[in-house]
């Protein structure tokens, strides 16, 4: 009788704990690949590499980072890049998705073709875009560098200097290389955003649109007051992806502009790469990585909060 009770007790505990055992491998993996590197990065940000090993330097890495002239400059470039990249990609993605929703002929083919940029690696896409505008030799250089078309001296995208800033040291208007970088990055991100929005558009009930039309809503009003609010969750997902990808992506900058000309495309992720892998200042790079992560969190939570407010208002 007692044996039976013990067995029942074991079975009961086993059943209760089964979910934990099932989830345990995932927890261990997350601890190893996420928690541990995060803690290590925090530790690293307080160290400096010396010939004899690591040396605790407290917040010196952060101090040096803030004191470097390139740091605020790269923040400016990142803001410009993110604004251009997200606005351009979302707008264009939305417009293309609207077109594709019209059930035009061969829309399946268009969607397939649209996927091409998405399957090309960042670095490769950057290299291809670079080859297109390499001074004197690029496919488009003959056109762009033609003074008759772009007076007075033509435009060499990769070497043209940036215009004088309008707001103090803030790098706006951006250099031609930055605009080109935004275009290239958007080109690559466009398929994902378009398909996401297209999928969301197809969930908008036709009856709602029809009712609004009967009530006399114009095309713009339909889009503004019906379509956009209904696909907002998908837009938020797209925005998250664009912000995180744009903030952290370095492959395109690396292969397309290398931060140049000068420092005109030194976005913060590229600065991180340069400090970490160019200068081998791992402590300082870790400090910058923490700051970037912090800014990512702030951006994401802000967007989440704003969209929640919007949803509750609806």
């Amino acid at each position: 009788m007692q044996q039976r009770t013990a067995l029942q007790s074991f079975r009961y505990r086993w059943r209760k704990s089964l979910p934990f055992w099932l989830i345990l491998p995932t927890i261990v993996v997350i601890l190893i690949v996420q928690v541990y590197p995060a803690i290590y990065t925090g530790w690293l940000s307080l160290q400096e590499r010396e010939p004899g090993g690591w040396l605790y330097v407290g917040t010196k890495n952060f101090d040096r980072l803030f004191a470097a002239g390139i740091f605020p400059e790269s923040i400016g470039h990142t803001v410009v890049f993110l604004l251009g990249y997200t606005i351009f990609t979302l707008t264009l993605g939305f417009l293309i998705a609207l077109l594709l929703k019209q059930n035009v002929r061969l829309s399946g083919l268009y969607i397939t073709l649209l996927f091409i940029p998405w399957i090309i690696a960042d670095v490769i896409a950057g290299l291809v875009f670079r080859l297109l505008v390499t001074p004197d030799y690029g496919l488009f250089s003959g056109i762009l560098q033609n003074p008759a078309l772009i007076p007075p001296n033509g435009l060499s995208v990769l070497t043209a200097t940036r215009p004088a800033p309008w707001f103090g040291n803030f790098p706006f208007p951006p250099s031609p290389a930055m605009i080109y970088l935004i275009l290239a990055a958007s080109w690559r991100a466009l398929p994902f955003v378009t398909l996401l929005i297209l999928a969301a558009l197809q969930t908008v009930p036709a009856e709602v649109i029809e009712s609004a039309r009967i009530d006399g809503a114009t095309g713009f009003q339909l889009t503004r007051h019906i379509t956009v609010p209904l696909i907002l969750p998908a837009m938020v997902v797209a925005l998250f992806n664009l912000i995180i990808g744009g903030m952290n992506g370095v492959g395109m900058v690396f292969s397309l502009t290398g931060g140049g000309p000068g420092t005109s495309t030194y976005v913060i992720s590229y600065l991180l790469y340069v400090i970490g892998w160019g200068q081998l200042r791992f402590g300082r790079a870790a400090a910058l990585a923490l700051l970037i992560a912090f800014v990512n969190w702030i951006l994401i939570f802000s967007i989440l909060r704003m969209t929640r407010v919007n949803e509750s208002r609806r």
Partner: protein
Amino acid sequence: MKSKFRSFLIVLVLVVFTAALVACSSPAAPTDAPVVDEPVAEEPVAEEPVAEEPVAEEPVVEEPMEVMDFVTWYQYDENNEDPASDERVGNAYLKKTIPEFNADFAGKWNWVNVPKAWDKMTQELVAAVIAGGDVPDLIELGGQQTITYINNGALMDLSDWAKAQSWYEDLDPGAIITCTGPDGGLYCIPTAERPALTYVWAEHYPDGYPTTPEQFMVEAERLKSEGTYAWTYFGSTAYDGSGTGRMVWSLISSFGGTYDDGQGNMLLNTPENVAAIEFLRETIAKEYQPETVFAGGFVEEDSFKDSSAAAIPTGLFGYRYINPLTAPDGTKYEKGNENDMLDAIADGKVVMRPMFAPEGQTPGCNLDIQGFGIPTGAKNVEAAYDYINWIMSDLDRHVEFVIGPGAGFPSLKSAQSHPDMQTPFYQQAAIAVNASVCTNWAGSLERPAEAAPAIMNAVYKLVKEDPSLDIATELQSVQDEYNANN
């Protein structure tokens, strides 16, 4: 009961996590830069355990010595037989010498080469040393990388071992300095010296390549009127500011300028530096160079290849990369390898000259070295010693190495008179280099990897991006920012 069980589970998770970390962490590798006092005497002999009990009348058969791998990192790949490869010379050298080395050390070492990208090797090695990962037994390196390795404790101090070798006294003192760390230790063995000079299309400069900036401006204007660029060079900020040590340093040092004060501090704001940058700014404003000089990716070389640019200041080893060639008179050198430039030099179409310098100044140039380093944590240090001796103790082999991957002048003084170094190419190069004072651009700077992008970005800003900026103010600002971290 429930809470106890939960506590148990939490403890269990932590134990599993800790165990996983321990399992994943590297074996206890020394993080401190070890000082190698003496060659490690351990032979890789698989020792048999001594048997306690006497084994009756069995003859003791000695185990053959296990052949150990000797792992190197080169930027060359012995398996790449592409005749159009930029690294053809080094690739071919490794393909030839790996079997020779393995034959000479048969039964002892087996040379295994791992090709690495030239601009990523430093990062990979430092990361491997810090992480306690697998490191090679020997790497090839340039002088400017040495200090970065030293700062990260990635190289062994070879002083005591090197000084005991027969070839040490024969080493060029200038090359030794480039391998010497701030603590006085010798962290690499220099094999070749790589000075910078200017390759010139002779026909474009019928009166000879200018020797002063004033002459250069006159000639440049003439060439411009003929539709030819006076020169092309690496003027981009790409490759972590590597342009700092290229043409910009040749020009600045020719003007009597410097990047450091000899005490480890950056010194940019000097009248000589300002004058050099003013000169460069003027040449750029007058478009004496193609726009490609600022594009990175070495596309600027193309203008010299087709002779639309009349000169290219670059490293001595540039001849390997600048091909095929078309001379101003249309003569084509189309082998597509290093022989194109060598042939053009032999034909007198291309000449090598020092950088021009203001009256009273001696032309300057960058002096880099090619050398060997032994990484901290190398498993087979003995093989690395054998390899270095194999190259350095035999003059023919040393010269073969210098002409191959070394790509410069021999670091051994006695090898400089070797018959293979008496070709038109080396003779002309020697004249150009001897007319210059060549020093490493980094001087006493202990953080060249930080200094290079800072200097190049500043120069680019001053000469291209915003030529209206005050040069002295900008240079002072970069100098102050660097020195604040000293």
